[in-house]
């Protein structure tokens, strides 16, 4: 694994180089630990990105339309860990991808303008495909474990 990680960075080290207790081997191990952590974070962020997008699509499909703050509350209530700094750029990107469309609305009596999002046709077509792909992946993983 350690050799593999280094290989990813274009470096080739033999196991014997890091199996002794010298200063440079300690330094190499430290670098590898950081790299392992970074690659895990990267993997997690990639996994979360797709997962959160699916969550937003599912929620909007159910609720028809919603705005940022409401979506944040609904997702958090459903146990999805997401904050403002992730949700708003995510909505922005999904709109750019043409999965969502948005419209600014101000309540007639009182209140401030809010940006309401809803699924557009492309998003509606995509949702069942994404759900099925996600469920399939989950099933494969369960099968592998058994």
């Amino acid at each position: 694994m350690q050799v593999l990680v280094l290989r990813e960075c274009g470096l080739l080290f033999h196991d014997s180089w890091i199996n002794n207790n010298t200063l440079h081997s300690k330094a190499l191990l430290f670098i590898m630990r950081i790299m392992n952590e970074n690659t895990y974070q990267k993997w997690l962020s990639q996994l979360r990105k797709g997962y959160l997008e699916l969550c937003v699509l599912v929620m909007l499909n159910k609720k028809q339309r919603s705005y940022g703050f409401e979506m944040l509350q609904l997702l958090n209530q459903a146990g999805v860990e997401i904050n403002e700094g992730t949700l708003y750029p995510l909505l922005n990107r999904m709109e750019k991808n043409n999965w969502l469309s948005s419209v600014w609305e101000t309540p007639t009596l009182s209140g401030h303008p809010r940006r309401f999002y809803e699924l557009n046709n492309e998003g509606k077509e995509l949702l069942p495909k994404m759900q099925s792909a996600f469920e399939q992946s989950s099933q494969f993983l369960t099968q592998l474990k058994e």
Partner: protein
Amino acid sequence: MSNQQYLKALKRALGNLKKHNRDEIIKEIQSHIQDIGESESLENKFGNVNTLAKKYLGDVPLAHPLHRKVGRFASKTMAIIGIFVLIVLTALAALAWYWSQDAFNYADESSKQLTYNKNSWQKTSWSELTTVEIDQSQVVLYWHKEDTLRWKCAREQSFDQGKLHIKQNNCLVYLPMHLSMIRADQARLILVHPLADATINITQSQLQMAENTAILSYQINAERSEVAKFQSDINSGINSDINSGNSADVKIAITSFESSIEHYKY
């Protein structure tokens, strides 16, 4: 960092986005502030400004304030340099055009520069043997009804042994209404409205004709020279013997070698 400062910083960091998109993002965050309450810190909720901006930007590079300043400064400086260079080039072109012009329109026979003044003009009586020789000079030749040879030059010019020999000088010369013998070598020669016959021999020179209203009969013998088409010519050409019309009573005989014969233009 206050919420206002946070929004300002975010707006700056999103500088590479289109204005409309940037404004929409800021407006949405402002709307979110109103939902959560003004007392909440945006930095706590949304995280580091640059990290948030990077999420919005995706592949678009983050607008670095310093880069933008440097970019703006560089583009302004380049624009100023460009304008300055353009002005200098225009001024140089105007100066070159101005300097390349003649001192006045030599074809204008009523020009004040031609007004006779004893102090500035020199004069001598004319004889049949009088010749004008021009070397490495610019000379404008006019004709007048006096039996004298009159000249005005940039530098002192003497008349010696029946010969006006102009060398490395700029002169205006008036010839009498007699046959004139003119020889020019590496010179610029301008003939304005000839009133009498002239025999001109030029070598490596430029001869320009300002005929004005004169109808002239040209006899041009040119070798390795460029000869323009003259209004009074019918069959102008190199080594051609041309008679432009029966009514012409002034004959200009030109022998040219490695020279150009053309119309005078101011």
